[in-house]
């Protein structure tokens, strides 16, 4: 067992956990924040994506005890049913899901993707490494490739993110 303290969606959390507990299991099983989903549990599907200190990561591939002092944002921290995050509203409007299981990870990832493009971080499809990356569908598709949707809602997901990206640009 080991102790760890971090904040989740702004609230301080002090936990004593088996060292094997992943951040994903700490969120779901110990803090009962079940918005973050367990898909593959091997970093391949992106359903477990959360934002730690402003950066998206796979919460299944990191131990909770490695996050002492960190600030963690889950889908519950982005919005709520009566006050949706703009990306949540855009996913509803554009029908960016079918079963919805991958959606929390898709939305956490998309929030961070827009920040990454705004910060000038290049991607595999950026034509010139020394220019600022553009908000294009090609960039969004490449940057969202770590989030799998078995229902195949990809084109609607791109539409939803594009609408919000356009508002930011």
């Amino acid at each position, binding site marked *: 067992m*080991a102790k760890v303290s971090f904040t989740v969606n702004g609230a301080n959390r002090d936990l004593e956990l*088996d*060292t*094997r507990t*992943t951040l994903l299991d700490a969120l779901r099983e110990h803090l009962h924040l079940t918005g973050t989903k367990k898909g593959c*549990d*091997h*970093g391949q599907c*992106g359903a477990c*994506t959360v934002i730690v200190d402003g*950066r*998206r*990561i*796979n919460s299944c*591939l*990191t*131990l909770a*005890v*490695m996050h*002492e002092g960190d600030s963690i944002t889950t889908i519950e921290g982005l919005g709520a049913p009566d006050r949706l995050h703009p990306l949540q509203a855009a996913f509803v409007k554009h029908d960016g899901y079918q079963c919805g299981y991958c959606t929390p990870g898709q939305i956490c*990832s998309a929030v*961070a*993707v827009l920040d*990454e493009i705004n*910060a*000038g*971080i*290049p*991607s*595999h499809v*950026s034509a010139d*490494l*020394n220019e600022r990356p553009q908000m294009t569908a090609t960039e969004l*598709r*490449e*940057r969202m*490739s*770590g*989030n799998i949707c078995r229902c195949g809602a990809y084109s609607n997901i791109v539409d939803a993110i594009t609408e919000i990206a356009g508002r930011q640009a």
Partner: protein
Amino acid sequence: MKSFTYERAHTPAEAAGAAARTEGAKFIAGGTNLLDLMKLEIETPAHLIDVNGLALDKVETIPEGGLRIGALVRNTDLAADPRVRRDYGLLSRALLAGASGQLRNMATTAGNLLQRTRCPYFYDGNLPCNKRKPGSGCAAIGGFSRQHAIVGGSDACIATHPSDMAVAMMALEAVVETVRARRVRSEAAGAAAGSGMTRSIPIADFYRLPGETPHVENTLEPGELITAVTLPKPVGGTHIYRKVRDRASYAFALVSVGAIVQHDGAGRVALGGVAPKPWRLAAAEAEMPRGAKAVTARLLADAKPTRENAFKMKLVERTLGAVLAEARG
């Protein structure tokens, strides 16, 4: 997952000391590969030393004109560093061709170098694998081997090295800096052990071919910690990383080519996806002005492809041909 004890280290020497003291200890940084393998009980460390607090997360310009990349610099940050984008474009491109945004945010420079193979037989505990269980045999030889090595393998193992970044590091002639604990014979020598022993390993000497011991993948000693990777001063030229894979994104390479091509057609080339380590040969680079066919003939002179991966022979030549054509503009 097997149970383990856990500690946070605060300095490189402290981490190396803890590794030397503790049987079955491993360092953990990004954890993206290690935790995956621990869940499958392919890796079963008794103790984890968390090195994320070691403050090795800076990219610094060094006086000789190169860069010193801290071991903990995340793949995203290294790819986005303006100096890397400007002077070592091959490295940015290779990093951005690998994994996903989420994984690159966690994965570190040192951890990327130490990635284990994605050979499916290494991952399947029901089948023999000399890398996972020395002496048990190799299920890939005679098995499904489409993704496996065509050159550099042995009768014991034909697994490939999975890293894109390491291919760029090989072409850029990076140097791996490490620290390990001094062997302490008495308490009185404790003070001398405080700083640890450091050394620099050229990347050409870092990886080992499988031979009879495919579980030994590099020249690090037990408990030796990577602290930084240095890049020599920029060599100019056109930097291209071309990766051929089954999906357009988020897949390991079937074949990748990392190249630095100068105006006169000379340059450097390293291959990924075809060998147990990033594959680079001086004799092949001497052929660069003569074109892709001549270079490939040298690079793959000792190749022993299987029936399933023989296509990689032609794929290397064609990918390199495309890269050289792009470099000519």
